[in-house]
């Protein structure tokens, strides 16, 4: 059993305001083709009082990732920290992972032969792919590898209301628990004290 906790995304839909900051940050960070949306913000029940809300969805890096299980060519691999990645050099673009995914995460560019569907692209949790870390090849195929640089994925880093949280499952739970526990306990202003700017 590994000592790593599993990395997870969590979107607090009470905070998500449908600003698309996460999805644009993702597109921009990985310089994705316009047809690819690794991350999407979905808005439900638009305009209906009390029911409208939005949430941000990308690959959820499932524990028992169905995409990995249905893949006919075994192009998926799951890192020790739970990030679900795939090898674009093995993928054949069949689309089965999309059929298996409950979140619509797998994306297919139209860059195959004669403008047909190419190999699959999806959220990597900014952890690149099987190529050497931070190599040009990795960057070209999978975009940035921010995890290797010790950075938070671009989407969560850019989230304007900090609705989207990412990290190992325990840390994400902790942040959320603190949020819930702090309800009604007043704002958190540091007790730094104050000494006079003038005189004394």
């Amino acid at each position: 059993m590994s000592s790593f906790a599993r990395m997870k995304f969590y979107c607090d839909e009470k905070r998500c305001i449908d600003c698309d900051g996460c999805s644009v940050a993702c597109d921009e960070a990985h310089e994705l083709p316009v047809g690819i949306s690794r991350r999407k913000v979905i808005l439900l029940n638009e305009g209906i009082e009390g029911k409208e809300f939005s949430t941000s969805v990308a690959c959820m890096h499932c524990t028992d990732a169905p995409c990995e299980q249905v893949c006919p060519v075994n192009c998926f691999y799951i890192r020790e920290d739970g990030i679900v990645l795939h090898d674009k050099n093995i993928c054949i673009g069949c689309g089965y992972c999309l059929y298996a995914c409950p979140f619509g995460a797998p994306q297919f560019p139209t860059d195959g032969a004669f403008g047909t569907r190419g190999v699959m692209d999806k959220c990597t949790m900014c952890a690149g792919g099987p190529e050497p870390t931070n190599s040009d090849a990795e960057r070209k195929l999978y975009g940035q590898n921010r995890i290797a640089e010790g950075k938070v994925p671009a989407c969560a880093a850019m989230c304007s209301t900090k609705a989207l949280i990412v990290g190992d499952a325990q840390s994400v739970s902790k942040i959320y628990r603190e949020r819930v526990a702090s309800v009604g306990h007043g704002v958190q202003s540091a007790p730094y004290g104050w000494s006079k700017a003038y005189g004394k």
Partner: protein
Amino acid sequence: MKKVILLCLSMISAFAQSYAGKVPLVSQNQGVYDGTSRLNSPELLHNIMLYQNWGGLFVNLQIHWFRTLFFGITVGVLVVFFLHYIVIGPKKFAHDGKAIYVYNLFKRIIHWMAALAFVIVIPTGFMMIFGKELGGGTLVLDARYLHSIGTVLFIVSVIPMFLMWLIPMLATFDDVKWLFMAGGYLTKKKVVVPAGQFNAGQKMWFWLATLGGFVMIITGAAMYFEDFDLAILKSLNLDQIDILRISAIVHNFLGMAVTALFVTHLYMSLFAIKGSLDSMISGNKSEDEVKYMHSSFYKKLKKEDKI
């Protein structure tokens, strides 16, 4: 027809549901549990709810059944015919007698076009199903592209084929009798088999290849184009993603049937009836073969004094 398809699908579904539970689904991955979260009310996340119908079914079938069934059916059919060849052996007919001209040039060209399409589509299909063993990558990806190109050839050939053989392929009472005696293939004796121009086995193959072929084309096209927006789907309360899932399921099961009958067809024409391949080359069948294997057709020709 729609009812039949839906019935079939629901049967498949029921079958797979009985198997459900062995594949861990993804509900535990949605994040931190929060009792007040609106996301936990399932009717709101439409797509995840629908996932439980077709998504779960597809995942179950793909993980546990498709590969096994394809393997089993292919090997099973081959073994059965191998045994048949050893135990019962092929039928031999005299080819020195009169030749009856049954397939004109047009029909033969169409047949061979379709044959070529099958020769492309079926092996490339198998390459995708058993992509793991091939290591994926360019080889299998190219097989996928070839699968689509083969489909184009198939579309071109299947339409005239359907029209040209539609009438003689309609079922008759002979077919029932033919089925009861298994086409006379289970005996070494040369028996008279009740059949018109085409016997029940050929008819089965025809209908599967044409009607089943249309379904294969439609489901394949759905998966190929992936992104489509048809109002009719909405009226059936189906989402695109579910159409894709259903397409993949149907495509796989029909693929099994097509594979089985394709292998049968090959065995019959190449091995089981010696010299029958000749009819698709020259267009002629020997009188002896027609007399036994297509007895009703033979009688009809006699009556019309064409022989």
